[in-house]
């Protein structure tokens, strides 16, 4: 396989991981977030700093990345307890801008120059690149998928579904909105953190603009196209929106226009997502059905 295909594969895998995290927050718990790239960025920056400033290996820093992103995710989830729906969407956009500004303006994070010289991930003393890095990403994706899948099967998932539908009614059956919303935020953002760490170690140079609002929008698009609230939707969405622009590559000038048109078309024809309720892939496999719906 040539390195170009592998690179695309790696980006799709990383996006799948990050979008799966978004899915837990938006798809399962119904807390709309338009600032997910912030957590992707926090993961990437944490990994990059631990690697370049503390000389830590990827494996050593990974738990720290997860804890830090999850903790910040918890803090950033707090507004969701106060503001809802569109208000929450705007708040999360704001969080994205503020986090991006931090990366951009605090010299510790490399400021406007970004952070370079991030080492490769090593396994058993051998650096992973190309195909082996893809395999690494896919392994993480597998873990993330398992967590997502179990989430739909566990009581906490069901609790989140009830919150998504009606918070007050959910409370009257004993579901604490604080606890379960924040749980979703922590898990979702931690997944973004893992994706960020992989991204940083693959790109080996990161800068604030890699994690801006347009990236959040892209991730939400992937989720919506693939199928919000489904376990596999994030992967399908990441694959479609990752491949389309590459397929259109030869069209140079018309590429983005075509991309926009197709995105619009998919949303228009499959508003519930391709794997969603009335989506094109209507399957009997329970694993494909939106959490808790028939």
């Amino acid at each position, binding site marked *: 396989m040539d390195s170009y295909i592998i690179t695309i594969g790696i980006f799709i895998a990383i996006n799948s991981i990050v979008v799966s995290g978004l899915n837990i927050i938006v798809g399962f718990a119904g807390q709309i977030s338009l600032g997910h790239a912030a957590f992707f960025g926090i993961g990437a920056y944490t990994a990059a700093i631990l690697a370049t400033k503390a000389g830590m290996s990827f494996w050593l820093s990974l738990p720290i990345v997860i804890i830090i992103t999850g903790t910040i995710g918890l803090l950033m989830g707090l507004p969701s307890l*106060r503001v809802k*729906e569109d208000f929450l969407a705007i708040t999360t956009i704001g969080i994205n801008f503020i986090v991006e500004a931090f990366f951009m*303006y605090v010299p510790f994070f490399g400021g406007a120059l970004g952070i370079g010289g991030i080492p490769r991930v090593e396994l058993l003393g051998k650096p992973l690149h190309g195909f082996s890095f893809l395999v690494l990403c896919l392994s993480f994706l597998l873990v993330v998928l398992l967590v997502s899948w179990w989430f739909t099967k566990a009581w906490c998932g069901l609790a989140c579904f009830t919150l998504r539908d009606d918070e007050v009614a959910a409370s009257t059956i004993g579901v604490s909105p604080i606890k379960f919303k924040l749980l979703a935020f922590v898990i979702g953002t931690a997944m973004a953190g893992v994706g960020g760490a992989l991204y940083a170690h693959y790109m080996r140079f990161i800068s604030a603009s890699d994690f801006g609002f347009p990236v959040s929008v892209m991730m939400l698009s992937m989720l919506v196209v693939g199928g919000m609230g489904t376990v596999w939707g994030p992967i399908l969405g990441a694959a479609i929106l990752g491949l389309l622009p590459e397929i259109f590559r030869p069209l140079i000038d018309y590429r983005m226009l075509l991309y*926009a048109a197709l*995105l619009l078309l998919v949303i228009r024809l499959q508003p519930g997502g391709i794997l969603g309720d009335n989506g094109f892939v209507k399957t009997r496999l329970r694993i494909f059905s939106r959490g808790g719906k028939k």
Partner: protein
Amino acid sequence: MDLFIEQLMNGLAIGAIYALITSGLSLIYGILRILHVAHAGVYTIGAYVGLTVYSLSGSLVIAILASMAVCSIVGILIERVVYSPLLKFPPYVPLIASIALLLGVEEVMRLIAGPQIHGFPVSIPLPTITMGNVSLSPTLLMVYIVSIVIFFILWFITSKTDLGLAMRAVSQDMSIASAMGINSTQIVRLTFAIGSSIAAIAGILVGIYFNQVYPTMGAVPAYKTLALIVVGGLGSVPGAILASLLLGIAETLLIGYANIPFPRDAIAFVAMILVLMVRPQGLLGNVRKKI
């Protein structure tokens, strides 16, 4: 003191510009509760059509009228073709469609008019007003005057006419509104037409004010205006205008007096999050919730 007044005027001007772009969006958001990012695309189209017609006809009035007409049609088409089938889905679905639309508009404009920035040099038949060290340029005066007129018209429509009542009714329950004899489709269409024509005016005025028309000119307004309408209060046009003016002033004074090395947008969003944490319903939002 002079400096302060001058900064205040600077802030008001930029606030008025935000308000121009935001007020039309607020109207549209009010009726369908859609985060209509593509409004910034309509605004871009408005600026381009205005510039083209102006350079062909040499008349700003004709340019504005033509642009309003084109943008109304674009707005109505967007509503009919894209949004109306998506209304029954959660709000992020039309949002994504809207983002795709905005990207599409940017690309179409780039393909038609090229990626470069075009100037929009117009001499406005207004004087420069100078008070001490503070001077208000003709373009600035024009922005003030046009905004005030538009705001007045919008305020009148939304709070003094039957159309305003119908808009609010439709925004809350389209089908029951129809059962009351309100032609919901027509009201929605009309709202899009009005909102989009204001976008056209905004596009032209902002184009003239900054002397810049370019394909991605909607990128920043796209999300900033969203924040403004939400902070202003759900679908409240006066709220959106108030939020715009306050933000313009706050940004300007912060840049002028506090040496915060943060970009405008981040400042704006910090302010907005603070407002929302204190008033989750927005500045002038009076949304009453059932428990």
